[in-house]
């Protein structure tokens, strides 16, 4: 009899524990994507929204602390941070045990544990040319033997997944060793990047014809329903490990305190179901949020005036509904690059540098922020945006808006004004600056602002509208004179932005074809230093100064995200790199 009661007590305890840990299926979060996703095979997709979903489905070895700012790496499936040896070339990683993939027919009814070989396989997929991965650049040339495997696959037409790659070995079931081709302190960021989440080989092989439609990972959610470009439904992964919400608030941050008070000690995830609708039109998203059909909304720029007052505070109609606002600067920077191989704009002679800097000083950035962005941008002072390692809040761009100085510079270097008010080149030949642009309404707004700004300093600017792919092709061939672009952090380190100026990256990511020996030397030095090194921080500032003195970019702004949050949503905080915030959130009953 005693044993019966012991058994019954144990069973009851198990039931209570199970109910405390399981995500509640009744908690349904409804959100919207403004752009359609493309699929959910981590190796094949590169768009933000597909990767947002993947972040909830697949587990990377490392991730970021939900609350820490600036973003801080923490282990995810790794049992502790990597052990780095060999002067930064070898990374040894131990996996946590007892992590299981979400159930799938490919596992034939068995519970499938995550092992080190899954990561080896997942990384190999990026080197397989047949996958044509948009993120192959993150491992190319970095892991010993991987490029050779790619070359072999090109010759044979098939990637050999069974071949051993010396730089990427599963030492045992739970131990993984990466050997890099050179010292690389940024490699942990690769390990935390969403695309490097673990997939199971048998799943990929079972659904080889459409891997985009069958994402199976070890993350907190699994794909329940997918109506392409319309609706994505995620449900909590029943095999998800016991993970407790235990993040530390930033000191003196009231928002963090509220988040911690609401979430601390809860199991992850709390929300049982996430319904994502693809709603492309901003009016439709806005009205859906107004009708309480969405729980969270990034305020579309056209509706900022209906959400915020002049001081960017929530309007009373929202506070009356207990809606809260979270404002965050995105780790992104807008800029216009100059082509350093262009006969009019390019080169390092003084008059060319003066021309580029004058154009930068002549651009009315304040008008962009006030009129086009409706004050939902902050001026970028460095190519490295706020919240990213290397950003210095005290640094100021040397090419601030100053049309008077821009005119003086151009006068001084012989860019004389003609009868029509436009300047000529110092040799008297006509000077026309061609700016590549898109065909959307917002592109026309930018073009008008550029035209007005350049007219004020006598620079004739002509706009060449075209398709993104065509402009990109021309830029990579160093054939675009100027083009406005933006770069969003792949990882929260200044390197991700500084590599855009690195000479050898011309034709890859250095679309301005800027090649400065001084800059390249500093950049190469920065690669050998630890991310928390003081010297590296100073190098970022020196590199910034160099590109600004050379006039490599006309630096614009970083966007501000205004997130409206219904009162029943708990634990929201926008992370600069992570996007599937709902993994760490909870819901109360709707009112």
């Amino acid at each position, binding site marked *: 009899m005693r044993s019966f009661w012991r058994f019954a007590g144990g069973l009851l305890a198990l039931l209570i524990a199970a109910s405390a840990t399981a995500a509640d299926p009744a908690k349904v979060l409804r959100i919207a994507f403004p752009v*359609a996703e*493309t*699929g959910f*095979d981590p190796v*094949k997709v*590169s768009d933000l929204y597909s990767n947002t979903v993947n972040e909830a489905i697949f587990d990377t070895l490392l991730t970021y602390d939900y609350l820490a700012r600036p973003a801080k790496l923490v282990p995810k499936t790794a049992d502790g941070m990597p052990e780095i040896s060999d002067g930064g070339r070898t990374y040894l990683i131990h996996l946590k045990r007892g992590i299981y993939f979400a159930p799938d027919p490919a596992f034939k009814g068995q519970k499938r544990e995550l092992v080190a070989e899954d990561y080896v396989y997942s990384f190999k997929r990026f080197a397989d*040319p*047949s996958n*044509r*991965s*948009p*993120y*192959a*650049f993150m491992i190319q040339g970095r892991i010993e033997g991987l490029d050779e495997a790619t070359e072999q696959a*090109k010759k044979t037409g098939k990637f050999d997944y069974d071949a051993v790659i010396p730089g990427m070995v599963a030492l045992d079931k739970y131990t993984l060793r990466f050997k890099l081709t050179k010292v690389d302190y940024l490699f942990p960021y690769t390990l935390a990047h969403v695309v490097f989440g673990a997939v199971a080989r048998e799943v990929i092989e079972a659904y080889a014809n*459409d*891997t*985009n*439609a069958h994402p199976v990972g070890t993350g907190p959610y699994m794909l329940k329903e997918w*109506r*392409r*470009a*319309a*609706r994505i439904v995620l449900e909590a992964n029943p095999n998800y490990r016991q993970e407790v919400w235990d993040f530390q608030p930033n000191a003196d941050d009231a928002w963090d305190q509220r988040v911690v008070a609401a979430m601390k000690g809860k199991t992850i995830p709390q929300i049982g179901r996430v319904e994502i*609708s*693809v*709603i*492309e*039109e901003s*009016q*439709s998203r806005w*009205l*859906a949020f*107004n*009708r309480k*059909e969405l729980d969270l909304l990034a305020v579309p720029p056209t509706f900022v005036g209906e959400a915020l007052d002049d001081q960017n505070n929530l309007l009373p109609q929202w506070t009356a509904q207990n809606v809260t606002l979270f404002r965050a600067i995105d780790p992104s920077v807008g800029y216009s690059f100059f082509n350093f191989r262009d006969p009019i704009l390019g080169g390092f002679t003084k008059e060319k540098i003066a021309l580029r800097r004058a154009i930068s000083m002549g651009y009315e950035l304040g008008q962009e922020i006030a009129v086009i962005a409706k004050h939902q941008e902050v001026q970028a002072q460095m190519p490295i945006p706020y919240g990213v390692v290397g950003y210095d809040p005290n640094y100021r761009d040397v090419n601030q808006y100053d049309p008077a100085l821009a005119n003086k510079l151009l006068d001084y270097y012989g860019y004389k004004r003609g009868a029509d008010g436009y300047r000529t080149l110092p040799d008297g030949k006509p000077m026309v600056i061609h700016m590549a642009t898109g065909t959307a309404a917002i592109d026309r707004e930018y073009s008008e602002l550029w035209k007005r700004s350049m007219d004020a300093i006598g620079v004739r600017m002509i706009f060449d509208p075209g*398709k*993104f*792919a*065509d402009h*990109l*092709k021309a830029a*990579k061939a160093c054939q675009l004179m100027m083009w406005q672009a933006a*770069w969003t952090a*792949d990882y929260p380190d200044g390197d991700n932005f500084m*590599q855009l100026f690195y000479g050898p*990256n011309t*034709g*890859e*990511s250095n679309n301005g074809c800027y090649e400065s020996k001084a800059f390249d030397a500093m950049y190469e030095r920065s690669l050998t230093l630890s991310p928390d090194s003081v010297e590296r921080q100073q190098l970022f500032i020196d590199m910034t100064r160099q590109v600004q003195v050379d006039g490599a970019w006309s630096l614009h702004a970083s966007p501000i995200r205004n997130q409206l949050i219904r009162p029943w949503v708990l634990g929201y905080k926008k992370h600069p790199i992570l996007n599937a915030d709902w993994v760490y959130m909870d819901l109360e009953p709707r009112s």
Partner: protein
Amino acid sequence: MSAYIIRRLWQMLPTMLGVVLLVFFIFNWVGGDPAYVLAGKISNQEQIDNIRRQLGVDQPYWVQLGIFLKQIVTADFGASWSTNERVSHILLTRLGPSLTVLVPLTILATLISIGLALAVAYVRGSFTDRMVMIVCTVGLSISILVYIIVFQYVFAYKLGWFPVQGWGDSFIQNLFVYASLPILIGLVVSIAPNLRLYRTFFLDEINQDYVRTARAKGVSENRIMWIHVLRNASIPIITFLMAELPGLLLGSFLIERFFSIPGIGREVILAVERSDFPVIKAITVYVAFATIATNLLADLTYKAVDPRVQLK
């Protein structure tokens, strides 16, 4: 009749070939190189070349054209370059939502327009006729975008009569809940031009001698209008309707976008934005085929409606 149909089908070949050549060369000239987009944020020439090789866009034009022709013959356009989804699956799954809106819309718009046009043609020159024409002219002058924005705001958001946006899994729910407002907007937009056009067709017939003769013989006005006039005016109406039918395959981009309807119109725009040639090729070819087929159908319908029509 069968000889005529066979001849017309045979004549479709050069037309289709013209469409194929036009689509192929337009896309290759202005479509942009998809490899640069698919290669991602950071890519080198080798990766781009690898993608171009896999997509087949590095092949000589005549080889690519040959592949295109083979795809048409086998009705297999492969997979989308950006999502890897089979093109056939894209068409099958997106066509349903578009047709759920556009088929009832076309039927209702046609019936209502014909009824109203007959009525105003009958009272031509009256105050009612003038007022209807003024309303139609005003209605015609307003962009569909305005109707969508205003109707979505007023009827869906403010009054709550319809959902703001969305699409479900059940056909009945989609038709009567989610498609109702899009259909209403479509009706408002299409009835005005249809009514004006059909009115002119009916007025042309009302002034014919056979109408006067029928009246002289004492035939009722209802019979004159609904039987004699409608039948004789039906040929231009059929021509107009048949010309509109292939548009069903394209969906209504703006309506689908604002109401988040996962139809073919949105898919076309997505494909163009992503330089997704397989999807664009398939849709263009099917629309061209549908256009030619409905032209043939229109000719056959003329014969059915008016036995005096000779098919040669």
